[in-house]
């Protein structure tokens, strides 16, 4: 028997049929007649194909991937809400799942009644809930509303109540699916802090999110899924950078050139045709071809892959009919070593170039400090720091 907190998926397969109409009698009959005639039924689509991984107690895994790649299905199978078509899963010990935390709440009951009900739904006894009751209330900030019916709660209050109960259940395995999407910034921070605490107590964590910085901050290991298959499994930073790169590559295909403006050439270089270096100048040289005279604002952004820039610069540009060359020089590049992407777009009354990736480049320089677990660094900006240390009076 494996120790509590072990999670394993062994060659998990799961399929769904695209038609959901077979519930009705007429559809059943149609399926029946086509079967008698020997016609093929609608094909199954595979949501998961041969997914295997194993986590030892205390490990933290971040699951990433595009919508529909099977992340949530995998999580549902791990919680035993769903059953696999083939293969098997094993989660030893008490499993707590945060999948849409408000699902277990009953709106006719008060907050207090719901805490007990939801607690027992998650496997806590009445005594255990009573012991944690004050912590839960304090965490969810519901001191005033605890005896009100939940139907009079705001959606944020419901979310806090749900997460509060689940966060204090102290499971051996915690499965979290995109629950932090709602809630204000300070509550998100507290949720992350709570997840870090739970991890420090030796809980195994599987965390699904589209929010890559929080994955990087919370998890040590990453799994990238693509169309139901594990594409990559490894240390979280390696997997994340591969994933970001692929998001960028995918976006490149979407760049259209049927508009009035067309990107002819984009180059990124450092000083004297070297690679760009940290804290040194970076030059972006762009050639754009316009179908007619037009005016617009040119935006350049540096990103880690997705379309959310770390830094953004812009300038009004007048495009003559034909080719226009634009050069942009950033004096002190605040980026660490790594691969980055230049995104650009033109926005104006009649000039329009959609926001999209234009070039990728590597930066030479120092590595970024590794953030401690649980702290989210939003963007990889490099800053030189001078430190001094001593007694207060000597400084």
């Amino acid at each position, binding site marked *: 028997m494996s120790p509590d907190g072990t999670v394993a998926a062994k*060659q998990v*397969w799961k399929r*769904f049929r695209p038609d959901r109409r077979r*519930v009705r*009698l007429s559809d059943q009959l149609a399926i029946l007649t086509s079967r008698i005639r020997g016609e093929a039924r609608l094909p199954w689509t595979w949501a998961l*194909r*041969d997914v295997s991984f194993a986590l030892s107690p205390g490990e933290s895994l971040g699951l990433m991937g595009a919508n529909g790649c099977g992340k949530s299905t995998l999580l*549902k199978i791990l*919680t*035993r*809400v*769903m*059953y*696999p*078509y*083939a*293969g*098997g899963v094993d989660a030893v010990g008490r*499993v707590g*799942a945060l*999948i*849409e935390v408000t*699902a*277990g709440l*009953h709106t*006719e*009951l008060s907050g207090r*009644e719901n805490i*007990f*009900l939801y607690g*027992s*739904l*998650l*496997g806590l*006894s*009445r005594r255990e809930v009573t012991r944690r009751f004050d912590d839960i209330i304090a965490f969810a900030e519901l001191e005033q509303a605890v005896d009100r019916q939940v139907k009079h709660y705001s959606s944020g209050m419901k979310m806090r109540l749900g997460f509060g109960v689940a966060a204090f259940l102290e499971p051996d395995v915690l499965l979290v699916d995109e629950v932090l999407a709602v809630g204000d910034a300070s509550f998100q921070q507290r949720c992350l802090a709570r997840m870090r605490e739970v991890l420090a107590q030796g809980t195994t964590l599987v965390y699904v999110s589209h929010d890559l910085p929080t994955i990087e901050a919370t998890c040590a290991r990453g799994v990238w899924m693509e169309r139901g*298959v*594990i*594409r*990559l*499994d*490894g*240390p979280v930073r*390696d*997997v994340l950078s591969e994933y970001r790169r692929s998001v960028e590559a995918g976006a490149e295909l979407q760049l259209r050139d049927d508009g009035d403006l067309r990107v002819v050439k984009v180059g990124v270089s450092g000083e004297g045709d070297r690679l760009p270096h940290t804290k040194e100048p970076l030059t972006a040289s762009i050639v754009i071809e316009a179908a007619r005279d037009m005016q617009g604002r040119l935006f350049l952004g540096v990103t880690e892959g997705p379309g959310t820039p770390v830094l953004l610069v812009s300038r009004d540009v007048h495009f003559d009919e034909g080719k226009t060359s634009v050069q942009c020089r950033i004096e002190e590049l605040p980026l660490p070593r790594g691969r980055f992407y230049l995104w650009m777009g033109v926005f104006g009354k009649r000039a329009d170039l959609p926001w999209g990736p234009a070039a990728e480049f590597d930066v030479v320089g120092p590595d970024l400090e590794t953030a401690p677990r649980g702290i989210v660094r939003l963007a990889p900006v490099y800053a030189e720091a001078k430190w001094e240390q001593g007694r207060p009076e000597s400084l």
Partner: protein
Amino acid sequence: MTSSVSLPTEPPRDLRFRRRLRIGTSLVELWRARELVRSMAEREMRARYKQTVLGFAWAVVIPVVYMVVFTVFFRRVANVNTRGVPYALFTYVGLLPWTFFSSSLSLGGTSLLTNLSILNKVYCPREIFPFASVSVAAIDTTVATGVLGVLFAVTTFMPKATIVWVPVLLAVQVAFTLGVVLLFSSIIVYVRDLRHLLPIALQLGLFATPVAYGLEAIPSRWQWLYALLNPLGPVIDGYRRTVLFGQAPDMLLLGLSALTATVLLVAGYAAFKRLETGIADVA
């Protein structure tokens, strides 16, 4: 780091997930979740009677209304032989097990459907939902049984000593009810038409069961078949014999009832465990 290689289009056959039926482990798991059954039942009770004026009294109102209606109308139309027992008492003794069955089935039969949002997100033994519904029906019936005491007092009719048979009858009644509820609640997730069929079926069932009349209305050479098909018949007849007439239950008929009830309970539970694996897929 590992990268994926090319995959077959289907998993090998020997890898297929098969749900093994382990009644033992399932029962252990259910026993561990007994507190959850209690919480769910409590939730159902509170949610049901919150913001109602009569509250708990509703548990009594329904069987009492039926009793009054039957006493006023049914007795005049059909000539029911109650062997000297006041008709109100006669029919109320039949109404209690019927109300238990009927509200168990109407609550429990749809219990998985009404709790789909939980079933889809949180794992718990799924039996807790039908079990909680049956518990709620049991509490309601217990409350309604209080009226029986009032009826005995008003009619100055005394229950007989053979009342000691009641636990046996109760066991058959609960086993049958649970079996039907388990079977029904799991099938209804896949065939939702049944949800609309349920109220009509229960209405007809009330008249197909000897609630307003006695079991003697069934020709005696067909009674064995009737006992197999509707185990509630001999159970209700048993209650009347033991509580009102001072007789033992009809052992042959009750045995046949118990047979059907046991088969239904085992089959219903097995079907439930099999069908629950797909609930999250069709929900």
